[in-house]
């Protein structure tokens, strides 16, 4: 049976971030959260293939209790089961400690209900690391196809999958055996409109909650802040960019603004020769 597992993250909507100056921690209070955009497309792809092949889609996330909202959003998109992995001990995890927990959880699910594909987003927009997917794959010794843009074929009888991925210079078509992990670009699938039954189901759906002791007993030394090799030494706000001069067409005239613009651009060293225009 086709069983897709999607690992998702709820992330703060990055328009609205503040940092506690004393603890250097993120102030999450009052900041709206969203399902990580790439993860939404990964869920869409998983559901699309479930519709083609039959089977089911399981969603997992490690995060605070509020992440239930994002899990419900995935159920609304057509996922069947959702698990929230949540406990104080997990807090402050870097990608190393995160991939430890996720790999253990996926192994546990896989042992009861074999998984065909493990989906990740390309990256989470809060941390932008793109490390968790490859990290989990290494821990589970699964093949990993990152920057996936298209799943061409899933062959359950012969246990292989053919995935197209994007590199900087070309696309590569990769064949791996099942189970395989993949990290998804948005091209992987369009976000579907929720069907009415899925919508209704999601409203009442209560995700399962797993913690640090049950059903898996995690090694406490590897969890959260304590289990993270990297730590934040300091944080700050980026340098403010100073705004340059602004010219209005209504004041300077069209001819005036374009001449000024070109003069300023061409005054930058090397620009004239690069653009092939003389100062």
């Amino acid at each position, binding site marked *: 049976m086709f069983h897709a597992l999607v690992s998702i993250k709820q992330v703060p909507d990055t*328009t609205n971030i503040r940092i506690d100056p004393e603890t250097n921690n993120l102030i999450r209070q009052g900041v709206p959260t969203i399902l990580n*955009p790439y993860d939404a497309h990964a869920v869409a792809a998983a559901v699309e293939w479930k519709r083609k092949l039959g089977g089911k889609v399981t969603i997992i996330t490690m995060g605070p209790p509020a992440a239930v909202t994002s899990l419900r959003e995935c159920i609304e998109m057509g996922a069947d089961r959702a698990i929230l992995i949540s406990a104080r001990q997990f807090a402050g995890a870097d*990608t190393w400690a995160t991939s430890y927990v996720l790999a253990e959880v996926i192994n546990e699910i896989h042992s009861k209900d074999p998984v065909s594909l493990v989906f990740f987003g390309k990256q989470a927009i809060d941390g932008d690391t793109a490390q968790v997917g*490859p990290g989990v794959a290494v821990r589970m010794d699964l093949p990993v196809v990152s920057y996936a843009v298209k799943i061409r074929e899933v062959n359950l009888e012969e246990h292989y999958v053919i995935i197209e991925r994007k590199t900087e210079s070309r696309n*590569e078509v990769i064949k791996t055996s099942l189970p395989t992990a993949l990290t998804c670009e948005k091209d992987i699938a369009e976000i579907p409109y929720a069907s009415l039954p899925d919508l209704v189901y999601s409203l009442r759906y209560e995700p399962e909650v797993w913690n640090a002791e049950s059903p898996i007993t995690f090694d406490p030394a590897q969890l959260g802040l304590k289990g993270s090799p990297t730590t934040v030494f300091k944080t700050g706000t*980026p340098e403010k960019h100073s*705004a340059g001069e602004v010219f*209005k067409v209504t004041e300077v005239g069209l001819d005036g603004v374009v001449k000024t613009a*070109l003069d300023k651009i061409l005054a930058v060293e090397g620009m004239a020769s690069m653009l092939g225009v003389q100062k």
Partner: protein
Amino acid sequence: MSRRFWVYIEQEDGKVHPVSWELLGVARRLADEVGDDSIVEGILVGYQMEEAAQECLHYGAETVYVVDDPAFKNYLNKPYTVALTALVKKYEPEVFLVGATTLGRDLAGAVATSVGTGLTADTTHLAMGVIKENTKKLLLATRPAFGGNVIATIVCRDHSPQMATVRPRVFNPAPRQAEAKGQIIHETFEITPDMINAEIVEFITNTAATVKLEYSDIIVSGGRGLGGAKGFELIKQLADELGGVVGSSRACVDAGWIKYDHQVGQTGKTVRPKLYIAAGISGAIQHKVGMQESDFILAINRDPHAPIFDVATMGIVGDLYEVIPALIKEIRARKEAQNG
């Protein structure tokens, strides 16, 4: 024992990715910050690597470790991870830098996990410094987080090597020396069947990938202010006139006016051209974080209060459909004047 500062030399078909030279440049500076016993070394994995290895020496690597085998002809995560893990365990470098490219991020995440060390992703500033008195200097890896709202400096205290991926085009490349000093060390490596868990069945030349926004020096981007897909024809005209490429805000991608590969911003590409022209783009934070490091930003917007003006080197308040044609005309006039 020398303290090794390692740089992963990324290559495709024997062609070295320029970020590798940038990393050799930063690694040199970091090594100098630590002291005389520090050395800069390159790690090269691939097939038929003689020329690339030689180039590394020209760019200042004191040693290049080369794994050269047909099995490594094309990049695949697992065999490359296994090879690099073995090299790290053998030589125990103190710092290991990898380009924050598509390939580099895929590889570094896997290697760090398999070695069992920390990795700081997508750094834009690097230094060596003590964070507690009387302790050794650590790699202070600084990176933007939370959509560019925050700058965080991250350290890896008790694990080795201290790894970071480094954003391309942030640091200057090391100068190329006429003379190649240093040594090439070939590492032989046994390929076992369990290392091959994926197979490339086809390559597709991706026309979209040739957009290469992140490596372009000149970008002309259009936003919702264009009013429709047709507006990108005008943007393209200006880009062509300047020898640049076309970028876009997310609003236009969402509207289906242009393909995602052109999107600049938090969920698109981070760019750092010499010239960035933003036309009909309001300047939402998610757009700005993707382009605000550009050398010269020209913003064209009807609304004098558009936030894009906060990061623009120069702003023009006006209708882009008047300003851009006038700009094209002026450029053409100057080109003609110059050609006689």
